[in-house]
């Protein structure tokens, strides 16, 4: 199972490592042409404004909309979740606009408010250690979106068919179960 990791900026190596631990093969994707050879794509954490700009510049917006249209799964973490959202709080222009949800950026505050915590995620047995870094929140989701985890009443993990989004960083811990869930989604989509 080849899983691409969008390698424009951010925690690329960490995702490739987690994908490997979960039994897949992670590949850095720097050009849209590479999307043809992967079964799914992770959009990593990083700075969403930087990643969004570089995606536009290098033709990833249309390429990834086609990728998604073809039913290929996409997993966005932190900045990746922002990139996936249809609506951004504060009227900012969305990037891919694929997931039916409204996302607020830097929703917990600045870096000194960043934290880690144990999080119950649907479909995963025991709590997951979740690292939130200047993290976004999902303020509201459409009917077609399934909420997988909440923290203090706010949505932090969601799934819409072949699209998965987490506002924390599963790639920063050794717990690869969320990557495992994504690999299952990629297997089913094949």
């Amino acid at each position, binding site marked *: 199972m080849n899983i691409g990791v969008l*390698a*424009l*900026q*951010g*925690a*690329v*190596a*960490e995702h490739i490592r987690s994908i490997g631990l979960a039994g897949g093969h992670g590949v850095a994707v*720097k050009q849209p042409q590479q999307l043809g050879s992967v079964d799914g794509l992770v959009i990593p*954490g*990083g*700075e969403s*404004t*930087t990643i969004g*700009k*570089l995606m536009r*510049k290098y033709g990833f917006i249309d390429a990834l909309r086609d990728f998604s249209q073809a039913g290929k799964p996409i997993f966005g973490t*932190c*900045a990746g979740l922002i990139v996936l959202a249809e609506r951004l709080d504060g009227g900012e222009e969305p990037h891919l606009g694929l997931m039916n949800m409204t996302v607020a*950026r*830097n929703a917990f*505050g*600045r*870096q*000194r*408010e*960043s*934290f*880690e*915590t144990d999080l119950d995620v649907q479909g995963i047995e025991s709590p997951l250690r979740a*690292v*939130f*870094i*200047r993290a976004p929140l999902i303020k509201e989701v459409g009917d077609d979106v399934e909420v997988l985890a909440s923290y203090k009443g706010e949505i932090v993990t969601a799934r819409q068919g072949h699209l998965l989004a987490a506002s924390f*960083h599963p790639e*920063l*811990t050794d717990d690869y179960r969320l990557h495992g869930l994504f690999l299952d989604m990629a297997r089913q989509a094949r």
Partner: protein
Amino acid sequence: METGTSRVKRGMAEMQKGGVIMDVMNAEQAQIAEAAGATAVMALERVPSDIRAAGGVARMADPTIVEQVMAVVSIPVMAKARIGHYVEAKVLESLGVDYIDESEVLTPADEVFHISKSEFTVPFVCGAKDLGEALRRIQEGASMLRTKGEPGTGNVVEAVRHLRLIFGQIRKVQNLSKDELYHEAKTLGVPYDLLLGVHETGRLPVVNFAAGGVATPSDAALMMHLGADGIFVGSGIFKSENPEKFARAIVEATTHYEDYALIARVSKDLGAPMKGIEISKLEPSQRMQDRGI
């Protein structure tokens, strides 16, 4: 729920990887940097080349500048405190800056001791010019490193020297036997446990950016080619003829550092880069890299 853990502080730097962090002196420059695709900005009163030119004591920026920058961008904002200046760092933390650079660019406040950084919630980045400095800063609690290079010179040679040295030393440590490691820890003046970690993993436990002399897109790509995790550009952007173009070009060259045709394309018609300084022309007292070892 825990804040300020090592994972949260080091993780923040992981999210900057492959990115460019730009020095800015006011809100307008911060907006230009953000629009160009910077992953963070460093809010300063003066960029290093101006500090060099002005002489005198360089201190933490006026909090007004830091707050104005924080107000206009959504990307992380960093700010510099003097080496060993605990109170400047606490002041910056209270303002809510996202990262503190305990920096040799400013005049050191302490010639012996660095700030004990582990007791802060906000993470720190520090400069290093060899593996000994790198591991000492990590032991003190730095969550991110950068090569010192020679700030404000627009001359990449020192950044290259420091990055090559650190990687060369890491390769050497990887091949040492256990008994040799004890001795090497003593020679480098670093804690044995951190050195053992380097021996086992072949890497530093935190992100390491290049800094101190990057002036062109090709300079940035060279540092990425040599193994830097990302780039700090100080004077290189706002001391160039066309900051907006330079900023965009350096961001693209950093992302696609192995795509030489692309680097050629973004390097066209940029105008003049900042004027550089030949390192051998610097007096020993003007060498910022020798501060805070």
